[in-house]
């Protein structure tokens, strides 16, 4: 009977998603965990849970830095260089993580296996570098799906004109070729554009990367030598060039980053927009967006190889190798990514990284058709999503690639010249660092 009661309790806890870590009362009393966390209004709700963990464990959390990831990245690098890793828990991101191979400890021995099993497998795979689980993902999973203005597909005269010009029915694009046709068809510059894209830094390098993959190519070979100067790579870059040359994107798109894109689509001047899940609420908010009520969301289109684009990333929390109280730090990380934490974060819109929380948010959205459409589109895209290449030189390589992509888009170089130059530069980078 006792055994039955115990196992029933365990089953109940597991059912409630509390099986990750059973927090013993006051088990970390007297310990202070210094943390460097990503800052911003959208992240604060989760941090408001920290006192709950402090009350249960007796430990204290001291947030020593709160900045965006780009600023944190610079701070981490300065800390590594100065040898002053005096903090225990850090916000991490799958795109930045490969740069700090020695900064964070392997969480595998610190976190129960069943906790790890509760996360989406692809996320855990992306959080594992060289066999080390360097972070636990939080409910801030990012992959891009297609936002579009529904009214553009409801006009019979427009549909007829499109069919006459392109020879097939006007419907929400399922491939990137259809996307390009429709973006050119809808464009009416300078008042209305078919689409837009992030045009600089990791933004365009990431978009190029996912399009290369969708076309059946690779950014890097297995030894991390560049592989994008290929027919698939040329096809991908040509897609950006065609849209720019045709005037289907705003002329300033090569300077745009995420905020410009989000505000651009919300201004009602963009027909099709590949964008992140965090914008879904903003786009459909009548007080912020001119396209509210007219937003459709579909899975990311497919490339020439029949593969969806799916460059993805997620936020997470890591424990430093230098941390003196790794168990306590891992307990905090576990707490911040457990089911309750993920439910709290994903209630505001961001996508979860735990299987059970995915089910939960989908069930919650059943009565809201727009939210259900958003979740269905992103869940479908997430199925085939992939992280950035797992090399410490990803950011550096993307900084070598993106100016060349821009040069081709703006007509300073041909597609062949740009990719050759970028490939040579990345090859030099890898050789200089002794990668091969």
């Amino acid at each position, binding site marked *: 009977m006792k055994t039955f009661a115990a196992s029933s309790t365990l089953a109940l806890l597991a059912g409630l998603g509390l099986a990750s870590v059973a927090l013993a009362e006051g088990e970390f009393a007297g310990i202070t965990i210094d943390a460097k966390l990503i800052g911003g209004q959208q992240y604060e709700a989760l941090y408001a849970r920290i006192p709950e963990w402090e009350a249960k464990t007796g430990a204290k959390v001291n947030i020593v830095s709160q900045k965006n990831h780009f600023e944190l*990245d610079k701070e981490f690098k300065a800390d590594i*260089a100065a040898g002053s890793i005096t903090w225990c828990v850090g916000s991490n991101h799958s795109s930045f993580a490969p740069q700090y191979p020695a900064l964070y400890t392997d969480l595998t021995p610190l976190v129960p296996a069943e906790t790890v099993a509760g996360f989406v497998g692809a996320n855990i795979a992306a959080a594992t570098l060289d066999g080390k689980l360097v972070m636990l993902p939080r409910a801030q999973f990012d992959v891009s799906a297609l936002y579009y203005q529904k009214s553009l597909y409801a006009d019979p005269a427009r549909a007829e004109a499109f069919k006459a010009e392109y020879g097939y029915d006007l419907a929400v694009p399922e491939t990137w070729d259809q996307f390009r046709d429709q973006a050119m068809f809808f464009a009416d510059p*300078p008042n209305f554009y078919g689409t837009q894209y992030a045009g600089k830094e990791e933004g365009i390098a990431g978009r190029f990367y996912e399009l290369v993959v969708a076309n059946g190519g690779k950014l890097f070979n297995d030894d991390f030598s560049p592989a994008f100067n290929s027919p698939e790579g040329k096809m991908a870059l040509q897609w950006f060039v065609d849209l720019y040359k045709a005037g289907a994107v*705003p002329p*300033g798109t090569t*300077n745009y980053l995420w905020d410009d894109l989000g505000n651009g689509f919300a*201004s009602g001047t963009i027909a099709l927009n590949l964008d992140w899940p965090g914008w879904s609420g903003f786009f459909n908010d009548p007080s912020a967006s001119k396209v509210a009520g007219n937003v459709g969301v579909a899975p990311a289109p497919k490339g020439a190889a029949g593969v969806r684009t799916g460059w993805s990333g997620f936020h997470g929390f890591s424990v430093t190798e230098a941390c003196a109280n790794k168990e306590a730090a891992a307990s905090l990380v576990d707490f911040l990514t457990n089911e309750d934490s993920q439910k709290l974060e994903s209630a505001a819109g961001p996508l979860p990284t735990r299987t059970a929380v995915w089910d939960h948010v989908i069930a919650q959205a059943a009565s809201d058709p727009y939210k259900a459409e958003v979740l269905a589109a992103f869940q479908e895209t997430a199925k085939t999503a992939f992280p950035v290449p797992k090399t410490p030189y990803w*950011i550096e390589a993307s900084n070598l690639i993106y*100016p060349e992509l*821009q040069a081709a888009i703006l007509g300073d170089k041909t597609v062949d010249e740009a990719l050759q130059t970028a490939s040579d530069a990345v090859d030099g980078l890898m050789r200089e660092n002794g990668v091969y």
Partner: protein
Amino acid sequence: MYRMRLPPWLVLLMPAFVILLAVIAIPLVLSLYSSFTAFQLTRPETISKWIGTFNYEKAMGDANFWAAFGRTVLLLTVALNLEMLLGLGLALMVAKVTRGQRLLRTMMMFPMMFSPILVGFQFKFIFNDNVGLLNNALQSLGLSDVAIPWLVDGNLAFIAIVTAEVWTSTSVFAILILAGLFAIPQDPVEAARVDGCTPWQTFRYVTLPFLMPFIYIAMAIRSLDVARAYDIVQVMTAGGPARRTELLWTLIGRTGYVDARMGYANAMGYIAILLSILFTVYFFRKLTTARTSLGMGG
């Protein structure tokens, strides 16, 4: 027991020496040393990996570095001359004002009070091709029916950056030249008028030579400022697109802090410092000549 007694002057100067050593000399020597190593921020152990002049040779052979170098010199030349002309004009006009001059002088300094980062955001918005003030104004006035890519086209982006620099720093010239105008002895000016000089001749041959030392001081200060231009450009274009607006310090900043290649960034930085030294030496020589011609000594 013998106690070494330092001379009082040395004891008094010691705090200054220690501070200078800590905040200038040691970082300078360390950064110079690291420019000969493969130092990467994310791999602290690389600071001991001596690679000789490899970083310098790499920078010298890098077309992108020299393009950024040339662009920085061009920005420096254009911005400094424009600021000097506009600052001179402003100062001459303000000097003529008899009522409310103090208020005008204060107002003239407003742009200097803004953080360069904010100035960058302000001009980025003004020059935005889609929602920017300038394009919307041009389109509303019927002067243009296209979205002019101000921050994309190399020449237009250069103009946009120069505009932001000139807006924020013309008052440096104006204030220094105004100080010069107040310091000019009135006897030669009045003598020139009595001798029948036209206003232009009075300005050209009497006022301007007196102002030249002030102008060269402003030039020297601003040349150092522009040669290390970073924040405004980083916010407006980040050196792009396609490196069209890349300046020395946007390139060096990205190499050092984003790519984490601090050794290489420091090598580029030391070559870039040569530019600042050259301009400073040039302006100080001009300053000495101007002072000598005024009989003020070298």
